[in-house]
């Protein structure tokens, strides 16, 4: 039964995406909405991305220093490992899990409320493809903004590691700098960006799907938001496993 329900839900999701990816009625309206969404979903997420990344960068640095450094280990290992963790997993996958909570629930509750207050019916009655009109700008906006958020996250995480080194004295900024630059691979940055773009699609499309199919009232909107965040998180982790395998081989 669960399998049948899952297949049915997946089918509904595919049908919705088919409606979403259609040519916008008016490009002018689409770009105006996309800009608004870039601000709403992307720019408004910068503070939380910077805040979390800064402290996680600092914590990673402390943990590595305390747990893996030994007289036999080169001093630059802490900086090197901090960089690899930030670039390869934290700033793409973990940051997107956090964004799934912030952005995903926002999208589901916004679209779900529009559904229960008949605003989506109003769009349909006007002859507007409501799925494309509401969802496509969100998907495009977050996919366009996420690389910037990833870069900001890496930068803030690195700054956090530097700050903890400088202000606590657990290691010198010079040792950290050597580690950060040691055998730097540009491809890893690209991997992080590619993964985050895929995750941005999951966050926006899945959250929109849950919001779009809400029926009932505010209670159902709340449930849909929770379900959207749970589904987004699970799908991000699953996609992370596949993409990491594909990109890092």
């Amino acid at each position: 039964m669960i399998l049948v329900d899952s297949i049915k839900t997946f089918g509904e999701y595919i049908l919705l995406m088919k409606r979403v990816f259609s040519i916008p009625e008016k490009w002018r309206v689409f770009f105006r909405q996309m800009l608004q969404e870039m601000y709403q979903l992307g720019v408004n997420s910068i503070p939380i991305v910077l805040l979390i990344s800064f402290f996680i960068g600092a914590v990673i640095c402390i943990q590595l220093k305390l747990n893996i450094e030994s007289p036999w280990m080169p001093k630059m290992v802490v900086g090197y490992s901090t960089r690899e963790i930030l670039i390869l997993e934290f700033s793409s996958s973990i940051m997107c899990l956090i964004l799934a909570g912030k952005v995903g629930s926002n999208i589901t509750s916004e679209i779900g409320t529009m559904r229960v207050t008949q605003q989506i019916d109003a769009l349909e009655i006007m002859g507007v493809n409501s799925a494309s009109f509401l969802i496509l700008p969100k998907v495009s906006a977050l996919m366009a903004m996420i690389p910037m958020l990833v870069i900001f996250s890496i930068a803030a995480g690195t700054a956090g590691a530097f700050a903890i080194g400088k202000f606590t004295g657990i290691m010198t900024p010079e040792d950290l700098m050597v580690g950060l630059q040691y055998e730097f691979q540009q491809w890893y940055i690209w991997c992080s960006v590619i993964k985050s773009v895929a995750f941005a699609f999951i966050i926006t499309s899945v959250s929109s799907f849950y919001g779009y199919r809400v029926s009932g009232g505010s209670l159902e909107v709340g449930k849909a938001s929770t379900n959207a965040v749970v589904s987004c998180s699970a799908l991000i982790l699953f996609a992370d496993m596949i993409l990491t395998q594909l990109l890092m081989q």
Partner: protein
Amino acid sequence: MIEISSIYKKFDNQVVLNDISALFDNGKTNLIIGKSGAGKTVLLKCIVGLLNPDNGKVIYDGRDIISFNKKERMLLRREIGMLFQNAALFDSMSVLENVMFPLDMFSTMTYKERVKRAQFCLDRVNLLEAQDKSPDELSGGMQKRAAIARAIALEPRYLFCDEPNSGLDPQTSLRIDELIHDITKEYNITTVVNTHDMNSVMGIGDHILFLADGKLSWEGNKNEILHTDNETLNSFLFSSDLVRKVKEMGMRK
């Protein structure tokens, strides 16, 4: 003109609409009345194409919407204006932007022309002073008026109103009714109103359909409704004290 014939709709095993046929003329305010759960909203949704009937036809000036594909249906809907029960204004936009929205999407007007048209529509419903407010700053009656302005922005050929008076005081209800009636006459559009408000029935009912248990139980106009011998309709009507008194006064004369 809209013609519906033999509309049949059921959900699971419950028949909600059973063989309903009617003709809605231009320039007339057509009312669908009945108790809650009689099938009014389902019928309205079938007429506008938000629901597909299991059987029957919905013909807009010779065009059967049931046989239309999605694209044809979308094009036809641009000729439709609809007032929802809770107004359904877009809360991310100001009142003016709400009214401009259909023009933004489907007209080839310049920005200035679109603003002018939207302001004209707002002025028509006496709401020009609220153009910069957001929908949540408006009272229920003002929201309905703004929704009417949005519905008429593209000069529709068909206007549908779902419970336009719900949640409004009698005086505001009367204003909304008059506005719908005047706009119908002024633009010669086909208007279908779904209501159980007896003041609306007596005020603007040019053509009335009475639904009971999913069936068309009675059809007529506001003058005929007071002299009907349909028992179900009479019991529905006389649940309104106002109508009972009007009928008594009419009989005395």
